[in-house]
């Protein structure tokens, strides 16, 4: 395979003059064709991966880059509010849910502009997407490197031909250091998981080398707010309740990926770990996500433990909400159970919810998002089939043994609508402003 040697582009005098003329652009210094000429960002290419140790290692290079650039934007006032001025606490209880009082966040957040009953929707350039953000919101380019060493270029041109992936700030941060990983930003991919992108996200988690830096993903219908492929990440130096939940192993795949289900957690979830390589783990999870997407099942993903653990949480809160099945008390909090909430980090808008936050309340809210036991089993069956795995439940007598399905094709079960999310049956647009 040809290796491309990275060399900063030398801009000729002729080119310089040209770009000087076009420097006006649309005036917003965005990533559109109008402004992108001459755009430069640091580039971080991570090293080919090995399984390194964990724990309190010194602050890694990537961590310094993320924090240093974030603090720079922080001091420049690019965020809608100072998240460190928002009171936060650990709710007493077995799990230690984290609550934050943030009255301004939902007022200042960009509203959701698409229907919430379809997991797969095409990219719409007219709606807000990440090519419309100002370049000052971008921190650096990020790519999975080929070398044994980290390669860092402080000032690399943003070249559409290289299909760059970027890390940007989240201007409405949940915590300090809240960033967005936008794979191949200029390719304008819609919000859906593909193998290459999930692997990039895993690389970032591993490279950060800090178990308190997690990446999260919300599918459409599971409270993604922008239909442009992105992951979120931030630092919280304590375990998420989701990470503390006990788990029970279900299967180990042929590539060594161990799949477990979480026990005694309000949202029924799967945990993927192991695998003979990071790619194996990533591909297995991607296969599972593609299956969920094709079956219109909304889901969230949490990448934890430096990329060693991936939690997959299918959910149905939006459907329940549309059917009027969510309890009024939970609705009143106006908390949408996206990946961070399900992981156990709740941003609360009302003081009374914050003051009265309890493990019970948190549990009750999250439980509304969970699939039922029965539906979860159905979904798992779909996933295992897509992965090419056989899973036999121990308890039931005369259990149907799922056969290995090498083609991984989706079978007829997928069209079952009982207990599932709203399918394409609804003719009218279902536009919900969040």
């Amino acid at each position: 395979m040809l290796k491309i040697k990275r060399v900063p582009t030398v801009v000729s005098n002729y080119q310089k003059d040209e770009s000087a003329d076009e420097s006006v652009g649309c005036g917003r210094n965005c990533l559109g064709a109008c402004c992108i000429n001459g755009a430069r960002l640091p580039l971080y290419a991570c090293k080919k991966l090995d399984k390194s140790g964990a724990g309190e290692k010194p602050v890694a290079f990537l961590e310094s880059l993320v924090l240093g650039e974030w603090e720079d934007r922080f001091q420049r006032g690019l965020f809608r509010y100072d998240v460190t001025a928002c009171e936060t606490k650990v709710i007493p209880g077995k799990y230690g849910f984290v609550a934050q009082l943030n009255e301004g966040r939902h007022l200042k957040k960009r509203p959701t502009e698409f229907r919430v009953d379809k997991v797969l929707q095409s990219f719409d350039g007219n709606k807000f997407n990440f090519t419309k953000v100002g370049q000052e919101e971008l921190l650096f380019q990020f790519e999975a490197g080929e070398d044994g060493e980290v390669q860092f270029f402080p000032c690399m041109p943003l070249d559409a031909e290289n299909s760059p992936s970027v890390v940007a700030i989240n201007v409405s941060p949940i915590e300090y250091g809240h960033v967005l990983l936008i794979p191949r930003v200029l390719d304008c991919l819609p919000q859906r998981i593909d193998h290459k992108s999930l692997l990039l996200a895993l690389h970032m988690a591993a490279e950060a080398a800090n178990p308190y830096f997690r990446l999260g993903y919300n599918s459409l219908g599971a409270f993604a707010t922008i239909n442009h492929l992105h992951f979120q990440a931030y630092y919280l130096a304590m375990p998420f309740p989701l990470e503390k939940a006990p788990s029970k192993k279900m299967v180990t795949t042929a590539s060594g990926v161990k799949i477990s289900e979480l026990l005694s957690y309000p949202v029924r979830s799967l945990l993927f770990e192991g695998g003979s390589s990071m790619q194996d783990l990533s591909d297995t999870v991607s296969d599972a996500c593609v299956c969920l997407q094709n079956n219109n099942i909304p889901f969230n993903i949490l990448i934890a433990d430096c990329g060693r653990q991936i939690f997959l949480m299918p959910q149905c809160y939006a459907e329940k909400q549309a059917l009027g099945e969510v309890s009024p008390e939970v609705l009143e909090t106006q908390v949408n159970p996206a990946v961070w909430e399900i992981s156990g980090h709740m941003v609360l808008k009302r003081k009374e919810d914050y003051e009265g936050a309890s493990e019970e309340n948190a549990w009750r809210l999250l439980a509304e998002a969970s699939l039922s036991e029965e539906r979860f089993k159905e979904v798992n069956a779909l996933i295992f089939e897509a992965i090419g795995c056989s899973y036999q439940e121990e308890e039931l007598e005369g259990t149907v043994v799922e056969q290995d399905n090498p083609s991984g094709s989706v079978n007829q079960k997928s069209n079952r609508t009982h207990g599932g999310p709203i399918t394409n049956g609804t003719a009218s647009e279902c536009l919900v402003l969040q």
Partner: protein
Amino acid sequence: MSITQSSASLFTTATEEKEGAFSARYSLWIKEALDELPHSFTITDPFISGHPIVFASPGFLKMTGYSREEVIGRNGRAFQGPKTNRRSIMEIREAIREERPVQVSILNYRKSGSPFWMLFHMIPVFGNDDGRVIHFVAVQVPISGRKMRNGSGCSEMVFGSCRREVCLGSYVHQERALPVECDEQELENWEHCEASESEKLKSVEAVGNVLSVLTRYSEFAGRLVCGKRSCLRVADCLSSSLVISLGRIKQSFVLTNPCLPDMPVVYASDAFLTLTGYKRHEVLGQNCRFLSGVDTDSSVLYEMKECILKGKPCTVQILNYSNRKDKSTFWNLLHISPVRNASGKTAYFVGVQMEASCKDIESKELRPETRQLSVVGAVRVAVRSSFMVTC
């Protein structure tokens, strides 16, 4: 409170230095007394960057196959490996962060590379006078048999493949069995290895014995330690978990507390001490003005003071006076910023020093400005999270 260095010869090795720091807390012969205990245990110091082991018992060295020099100064995770259960690692990390005891079975690796199961029992040791965690004591009890924990709840004692020929299929309970050797293949099936009740009792006994020795020798030294926190941590004392987090930051910086009179330094990184030539005990509790001198521009000092009063970050170039051998001055590109804790209010100011001559860097590294700001960011994360500890 000064920690007197034991006859600080310039030629002490890193091992001796760390061991010296440990012994200095207690009265003479502490190491000899601990050496007499039969148990395997280690003692770590959260206030040294990297939270290293500062004492390892002969039992520990025998069990792991390492020499003292190979162990002192290393962090406990050095003995973990690819098959070590991630959940156990997290449980230990969280117990340290929350300054509480933990007892968990975990797979560790010897110097030879062979893995073995042991029951890891760790407790914090508190200073009686200031309520902070002085050390963590960790006891390791090898797990001699193995109980498979699986769905069917089977709890038969079985032995590893290498011992099958010895047991001939019969159940043999050995008091002082060696830890089970396991080849890597078998480990695939070992999700968890539960310690027996007697092993758990052994760990409790061992912890108690170590703690008694420490207590006794600390008493002689006039600075009592004990297993329970006897008073609330004093205001200018940082939690051990915050100190551990700050210890990850390799640049020169200090934390000062604006809520205490004269805004004293409450934390100074190792790099700060190296840069300025001062010792930690000379710096803690002092206002930063000790770095200023005759030729320091007072208008710059005024500018800093204004920013602090307004709670705004600022960067200044200031002439500082070091305590290095040559007592040289240096130009300090100093960045200061208020830092909030979980309550949302300002708890500290962070000051990040950069020696001006260091401005030229290789093109392959972060810009100095970014590096300086990254310290601020790392401090913000550490401070915000440290106050959210569940107690």
